């Protein structure tokens, strides 16, 4: 996707974040107004990382001294090609290459990254003061979730560290996290985040359809639809609103017009939980359960999630949509490592 919104800015250090070369001259100084640029982008929900060839300990100490070290997630300070650093950052954050902006003063490094990762937007770092005005760095919405995005990634890093140190089966680890998964009917205040989710999610998105706040609000008021939002919390904090489902009421059936999850919760295994809940609810209400799926080239994960949850292909439409149907058999128990809270009323629907 050309001109996708930037989710992470990857900064070089020498002569980009600061003037001077750290290992040649200890008295480097921050570029003018760099803190303002970092802080403003951070509040917009845009992440920061680093790709620098430097001594890691020395560079991190310098960033701490300048008071800006906490802005950077998964900093890559190493002696490899920058394309390697970019790849590691992309993997760690689990976001698309087309949402990365790489800033470096060296044309060689920009070209090297561009030659390996054609989708990464590479810019000469001398223009850093113009970043704040660029449309790709001005997300349409800045929600509560966007302003907390870096905090959530930091929580996630803490989780992973603890998980790596944990000895024993994964289930015991998950149990120790005290996870709470809450499924609620969307309130008006959730709609902006809901729209944002339809624009931001790719891998775990069943159709790739975008919905605006206005269209979501119209659906919310229309008795034929239910909009469900999911929030996940654990002892480290909240992941925020990380899942969305649009359910359409049809004669004798419910259809999931859209199902999506933020890639932040990929490893928590909660994708299937909402589907398990909906399968039980549909069975209790005596209706069939259908779902729309459209192959967007990025969302096989979601097709597999449907498959694992007992959905099979029922019909194909000319417009690329596949209709899936659930057999509503063998619905597994909800996992006991999650405290599941439901704020949905099906009785009057």
């Amino acid at each position, binding site marked *: 996707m050309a001109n996708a919104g930037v989710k992470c800015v990857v900064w070089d250090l020498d002569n980009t974040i600061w003037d001077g070369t750290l290992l040649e001259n200890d008295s480097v100084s921050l570029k003018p107004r760099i803190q303002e640029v970092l802080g403003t982008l951070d509040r917009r929900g845009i992440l920061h990382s680093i790709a620098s060839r430097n001594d890691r300990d020395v560079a991190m100490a310098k960033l701490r001294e300048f008071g800006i070290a906490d802005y950077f997630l998964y900093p890559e300070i190493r002696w490899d090609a920058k394309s390697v650093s970019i790849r590691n950052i992309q993997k760690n954050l689990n976001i698309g290459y087309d949402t990365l902006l790489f800033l470096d003063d060296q044309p060689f490094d920009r070209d090297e990254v561009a030659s390996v990762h054609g989708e990464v937007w590479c810019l000469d770092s001398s223009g850093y003061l113009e970043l704040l005005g660029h449309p790709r760095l001005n997300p349409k919405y800045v929600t509560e979730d966007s302003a907390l995005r870096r905090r959530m990634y930091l929580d996630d890093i803490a989780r992973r560290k603890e998980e790596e140190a944990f000895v024993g089966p994964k289930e015991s680890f998950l149990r120790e996290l005290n996870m709470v998964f809450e499924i609620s009917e969307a309130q008006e205040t959730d709609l902006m985040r809901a729209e944002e989710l339809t624009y931001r999610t790719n891998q775990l998105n069943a159709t790739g359809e975008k919905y605006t706040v206005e269209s979501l609000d119209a659906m919310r008021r229309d008795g034929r639809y239910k909009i469900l939002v999911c929030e996940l919390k654990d002892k480290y904090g909240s992941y925020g609103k990380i899942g969305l489902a649009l359910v359409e009421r049809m004669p004798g059936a419910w259809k999931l017009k859209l199902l999506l999850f933020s890639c932040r919760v990929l490893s928590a*295994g909660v994708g299937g939980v909402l589907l398990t809940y909906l399968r039980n609810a549909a069975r209790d209400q005596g209706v069939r359960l259908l779902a729309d799926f459209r192959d967007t080239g990025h969302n096989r994960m979601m097709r597999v999630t449907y498959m*694992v949850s007992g959905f099979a*292909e029922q019909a194909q439409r000319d417009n690329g949509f596949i209709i899936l149907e659930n057999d509503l058999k063998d619905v597994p128990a909800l996992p006991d490592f999650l405290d599941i809270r439901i704020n949905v009323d099906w009785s009057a629907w």
Partner: protein
Amino acid sequence: MREKIRAMVESNLNIFNSGVQFSDDDNIFRKGFVDSLFAVQLIAYLEAEFGIKVANKDLDINNFHSVNKMVSFVERKRQEGTGGASR
């Protein structure tokens, strides 16, 4: 092939729940051993290891729900000759 697939499933199940017992005919999905993240890894593994291409229409749980089902599926895909089986 059976041994490789079995080892792949086993190594992942053991991360989640040590000492799990299952036969080549057991439905690993119904038993709740497998989540969608692992299913994606499993499909990617079958493609890479056995040189097949899993199309959207193949994404049917009946092709993957046990070790034996996966073996038959891979053999069938190889006979169809899709994806240029690598040797």
